[in-house]
């Protein structure tokens, strides 16, 4: 076989190989689009975190020396230290702000957990944002050390968007 014929043959094979790669890539992309079906649990994740504040044992609930009382918060337990114990956030992009307001709207406690990530809430309103933001608000009772008072608990949370994870 002559030298020129070999070169032509190599070119033909390279062309075939390129076509094969192209077809495989095309199939891969179609399948990948199907594979990346998202499971959107953003709201669920946020609401589960909020539930921990109001119902979760060993967190910020008032304890009457027998057991924790769901729906009644202990004002003295709403601290960064206590919240970090019952919300251990590792390897997760979550930040939140817990506010306790008195019934006349005065802010009694305001604690932010994972502030660096929480500050991304400026991106909440951007379309296709990398973060999911939500707000929860509930009427609760709180114990200030002497008596039980009515108040409002607000919870603002920023979570890495499920579709971007």
């Amino acid at each position, binding site marked *: 076989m002559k030298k020129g014929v070999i070169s032509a*043959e190599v070119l033909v094979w390279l062309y075939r190989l390129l076509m094969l790669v192209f077809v495989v890539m095309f199939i*891969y992309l179609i399948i990948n689009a199907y594979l990346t079906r998202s499971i959107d649990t953003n709201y669920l994740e946020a609401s589960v975190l909020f539930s921990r504040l109001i119902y979760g044992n060993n967190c910020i609930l008032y304890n009457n020396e027998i057991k*924790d009382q769901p729906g009644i918060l202990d004002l003295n337990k709403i601290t960064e230290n206590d919240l970090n114990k019952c919300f*251990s956030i590792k390897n997760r992009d979550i930040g939140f702000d817990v506010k306790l307001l008195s019934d006349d709207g005065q802010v009694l406690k305001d604690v932010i957990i994972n502030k660096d990530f929480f500050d991304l809430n400026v991106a909440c309103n951007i379309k296709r944002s990398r973060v999911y933001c939500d707000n929860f608000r509930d009427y609760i009772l709180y114990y200030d050390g002497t008596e039980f008072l009515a108040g409002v608990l607000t919870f603002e949370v920023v979570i890495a968007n499920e579709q971007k994870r």
Partner: protein
Amino acid sequence: MEKRGAITETSFAIFGIFAVALILVVLINYINNISNDNDFKQRYIVRDNGLLLETMQNSPGDIFVDYKLGNVYQYIINRDDNSILIKSKNIEIGKKYFFVDNKLIQLNSRLLETDYLIFEKNESKIDIRGG
């Protein structure tokens, strides 16, 4: 055709057959995994389990949950990095979910290989075992 030319042409053909066979095998395996929905199932199960665990940690009362996985999976909870890992025997890389842990609640779990999980919460203790 000269002998050297014939050998070169045969080499090209063999190389081509091998390349196509290799790509086809990889592609068929990949499609097979997807047709069984393994990837999606694992992503779904690991997230569902993570949310279940978070919810159980929130519960003021005791809870008992039976959880059928559908297939046999390896189930590993690592509290050092707050992760749940689920993987099939034949698939090396499993799916992980990082849950928000309540360190004040005791969690008993070891490496499980099962198609059936039992979650049991008694006061401040959660026990996870195979069925």
